[in-house]
């Protein structure tokens, strides 16, 4: 092809360019005129035709709701299910006289003042063209009566809907949370996340607990139905249907029977228990007492129930296992011991005096031991077994906070564990920087870290504050010789359509950098806790496997110098909290437990028996004597075999 390689004539080049500009412009104008012609064709010539079509547009797209995924325990027992029921719904936009209609409907079915109050609340939160439920869970009879009279009430519909149900009520409240009606805040959030389309026609959304965290899995994907409608907007005939994709099912690591055993053992007492499988991080039991009935929240809680729950001094709505912060008391000592050994502040066989009190050089302040006579000379394992305070005061003093903080922090204390629940508290593993920040608005004397501050930290008092979940997690890490897993409630996610299973991989997050031989010394101490001479020796009676534990007593109020702690003289909510951490079997741990019973005094007295019974049930299937025949998860005292519930299949 012959082309001039150089355009020498600028004039020619310029005019060629201008010519192309004119051609391009002409082309664009022509195409826009084509569009204009098309609009004239559609909007003027064909106007009548399309106007009629729009008028009679009788085909509408109706979203078809997916079924929410089920939540099951590790053995397939269903913990959150759906059941179908009829609701009576009103679309405000299609209503001429709302009050008259409600009154007339009241003649057909019983509409309680509570139904009406709830209806008005929903009404104020929804758009005019969205149906609003007036009465939920109609009986077959009521539904039939309304259907027979439907012609009298345009805009009134009886709909079959799926309702969520938590059969184990209080037992699962702090794990599952609940779903509730989509409110304006949820709506806003969905819009921001660009998920509104998938929630068209949906009424409920996960609000708390696993229901909220796994909302994206559980909800599923909307389907659509194209229906022909009559003039009143009622569906006459279904033309085409894109089926919804149902939500995915969750299978938990939790064993509902173990959960019930733990829950019932608390009785009326307040507290929390978390049991973790140290080999996977799976949460086997997760109790926060008191609980509440999550079913109350699904369709809007009434104000009396809400008030009684919200204002209860026992705070049943607070998830103590992830939000409750308590000083760990002596259950801190095993972790402190690991730090001390690793730092070289003390050798595994070194003996130290453990007298009745400890004083700092040049000070008369006495840090007292819980045993006023002291424990003689002890090594580190013995110090754990007898829970010597003065031994750990001294160790903490020798180490200083700057060495304690990073080493104890390895066990995840003072940090969120990353469990699959919302609202986890991080707690406090004290350090100089922390104190500086915490008291930033106070005088320098308050903000400063004093060397003496470290002493009480050594025995788990002072500024220490952790969640029961953190304590269980730290115990699991210790039991697994430093292997760290992220604690998780959900173990498997089953895809609704395909049945494909996604496992929540138990992947070790990391392995701690402690010298491997150190764990045995600390574990020896914890085993000795449950042997004669140990603080929980009584608890070991009848053990058929090996168990390691540590008692703890967390002060709620400071006792004055020279005064004695007298439980009877203190109001209940100022009494000490009772702690116990444990794992079993010692050789190959399958369960790690942390229990706290609020205001229940010495750890061995209240918390330890719960831990023992839970561990018994988990490892041998033995139901505690006082619960025999009272378990709702086990109608008859059943052996610990796997129970595959038929209702698990959808």
């Amino acid at each position: 092809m012959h082309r001039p390689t150089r355009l020498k004539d600028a004039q020619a080049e310029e005019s060629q360019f201008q010519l192309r500009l004119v051609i391009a412009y002409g082309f664009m104008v022509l195409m826009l005129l084509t569009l204009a012609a098309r609009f004239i064709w559609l909007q003027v010539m064909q106007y009548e035709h399309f106007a009629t079509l729009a008028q009679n547009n009788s085909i509408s797209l109706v979203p078809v709701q997916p079924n929410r995924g089920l939540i099951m325990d590790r053995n397939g027992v269903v913990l959150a299910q759906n059941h179908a029921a009829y609701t009576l719904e009103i679309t405000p936009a299609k209503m001429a006289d709302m009050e008259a209609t409600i009154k007339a409907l009241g003649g057909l079915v019983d509409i309680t003042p509570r139904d009406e109050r709830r209806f008005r609340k929903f009404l104020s939160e929804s758009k005019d063209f969205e149906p609003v439920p007036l009465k939920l869970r109609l009986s077959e009879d009521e539904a039939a009566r309304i259907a027979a009279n439907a012609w009298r009430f345009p805009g009134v519909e009886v709909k079959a809907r799926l309702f969520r149900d938590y059969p184990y009520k209080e037992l699962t409240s702090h794990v599952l949370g609940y779903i509730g009606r989509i409110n304006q805040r949820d709506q806003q959030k969905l819009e921001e996340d660009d998920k509104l389309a998938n929630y068209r026609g949906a009424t409920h959304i996960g609000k708390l607990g696993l229901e909220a965290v796994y909302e994206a899995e559980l909800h599923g994907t909307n389907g659509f139905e194209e229906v022909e409608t009559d003039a009143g907007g009622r569906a006459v005939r279904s033309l085409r249907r894109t089926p919804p994709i149902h939500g995915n099912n969750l299978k938990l690591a939790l064993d509902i029977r173990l959960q019930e055993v733990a829950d019932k053992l608390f009785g009326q007492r307040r507290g929390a228990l978390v049991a973790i499988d140290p080999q996977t991080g799976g949460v086997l039991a997760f109790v926060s007492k008191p609980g509440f009935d999550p079913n109350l929240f699904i369709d809007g809680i009434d104000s009396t129930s809400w008030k009684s729950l919200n204002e209860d001094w026992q705070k049943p709505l607070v998830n103590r296992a992830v939000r409750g912060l308590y000083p760990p008391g002596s259950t801190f000592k095993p972790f402190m011991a690991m730090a001390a050994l690793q730092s070289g502040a003390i050798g595994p066989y070194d003996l130290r005096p453990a007298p009745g009190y400890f004083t700092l050089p040049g000070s008369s302040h006495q840090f007292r031991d819980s045993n006023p006579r002291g424990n003689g000379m002890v090594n580190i394992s013995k110090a754990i077994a007898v829970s010597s305070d003065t031994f750990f005061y001294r160790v903490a003093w020798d180490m200083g906070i700057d060495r304690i903080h990073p080493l104890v922090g390895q066990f995840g204390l003072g940090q969120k564990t990353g469990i699959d629940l919302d609202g986890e508290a991080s707690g406090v593993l004290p350090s100089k920087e922390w104190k500086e920040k915490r008291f930033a608005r106070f005088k320098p004397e308050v903000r400063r870290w004093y060397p003496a501050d470290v002493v009480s930290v050594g025995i788990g008092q002072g500024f220490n504050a952790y969640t029961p979940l953190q304590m269980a997690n730290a115990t699991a890490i210790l039991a697994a010789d430093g292997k760290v897993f992220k604690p998780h409630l959900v173990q498997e996610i089953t895809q609704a359509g395909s049945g494909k299973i996604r496992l929540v991989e138990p992947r070790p997050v990391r392995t701690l950098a402690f010298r491997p031989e150190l764990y045995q010394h600390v574990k020896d101490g914890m085993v000795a806790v449950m042997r004669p001479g140990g603080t929980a020796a009584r608890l070991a009676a009848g053990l058929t496997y090996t168990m390691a534990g540590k008692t703890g007593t967390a002060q709620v109020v400071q006792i004055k110098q020279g005064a004695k702690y007298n439980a009877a003289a203190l109001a209940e909510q100022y009494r000490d909290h009772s702690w116990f951490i444990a794992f079993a079997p010692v050789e190959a741990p399958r369960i790690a437990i942390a229990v706290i019973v609020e205001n229940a005094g010495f750890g061995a007295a209240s918390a330890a028996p719960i831990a023992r019974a839970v561990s018994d049930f988990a490892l041998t299937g033995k139901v505690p004597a006082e619960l025999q025949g009272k378990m709702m998860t086990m109608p008859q005292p059943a052996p610990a075999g796997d129970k595959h519930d038929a209702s698990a299949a959808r």
Partner: protein
Amino acid sequence: MQAPLAKRIWDAIAAPFDGWLMAFLAGIFVMSMLVLFSASNQSWHKIDNKLVYTIMALTVMWIMANARPQTVMNFAPPLYAAGVLLLVGVELFGITVNGSTRWLNLGIVRIQPSEIMKTALPMMVAWYFQKYESTLNWRHYLVAVALIAVPGALVLKQPDLGTAVLIMGAGFFVLFFAGLSWKIIIGGLVAFLASLPVVWNLLHDYQRRRVLTLIDPMQDPLGDGYHIIQSMIAIGSGGPWGKGWLNGSQTHLDYIPERTTDFIFAVYSEEFGLAGNLLLLALYLGVITRGMLITARAQTLYGRLLAGAITLSFFVYVFVNMGMVAGILPVVGVPLPFMSYGGTATVSLAVALGMLMSIGNTKR
């Protein structure tokens, strides 16, 4: 002394903006706010977001309009290279949504590199021609074709036919203004038509269905034809004067898909009628006419090539989107400039128009 100072500040802000373009854009902006409010079922949240996008768009437009084209030009090669690298990144690590892989997660933000290419590619080709202005020969055209084909193929592979056509189109417009021989253009067109059967076989199923739907939407009125039919009913039933703002029955009874984004023009048409459509067409034609004038007066080869390509691309967006909604082009995901809801498209268009303004500001 107050008034002169305020005036000086105003002048400083207004100076780089092109008065004519800004007037047309302001008109489009007013219409877009009205229609978005209606299409989103009166969501103030969406209006707030759109205001934020508009402020962002004005800011980048101002920055681009202030920058000298000769300076910006030097960024073309690195920008283009980064765009190609990101497209390769999408191919390797991209996020797949609805079967096509278009997004790249950079940790903080998710980006759609093909969006960058819409501007980076014509800049690059224009830069290339400018660089070899005095020695242009047919080899340079070959290189330019390669510059266009590489990102085009990468986007085609995602697959995103609509965007690939837009990107390659922008590149082709540069070639056209650079004086690509008519013989080649016409030859290429013939070759393209001849290869259509082959292309047909390469198309994905859903793409073929879209074309078939266009030819006869009534074939499957409840299936693939549904959206097109509903959107044509919306436009047609709008009539000469429209049903009035907030009164579109097609819109508010949920018959129109994607009604705040790709199909927003159907909502507009239903509520404002033929009169509204002609007004909007006139506003877009105003932008295009002004763009052509800037192109005609541009001083450098780079300036005229880029200005021409930007203007033609702008026209293509308008035409493809309106044509799709009006049922004369297949359904492809092309937003209507400054009308459709969405931050990325608004801002990247603002960058392009800002560059157009700066080319216009550079006087002979």
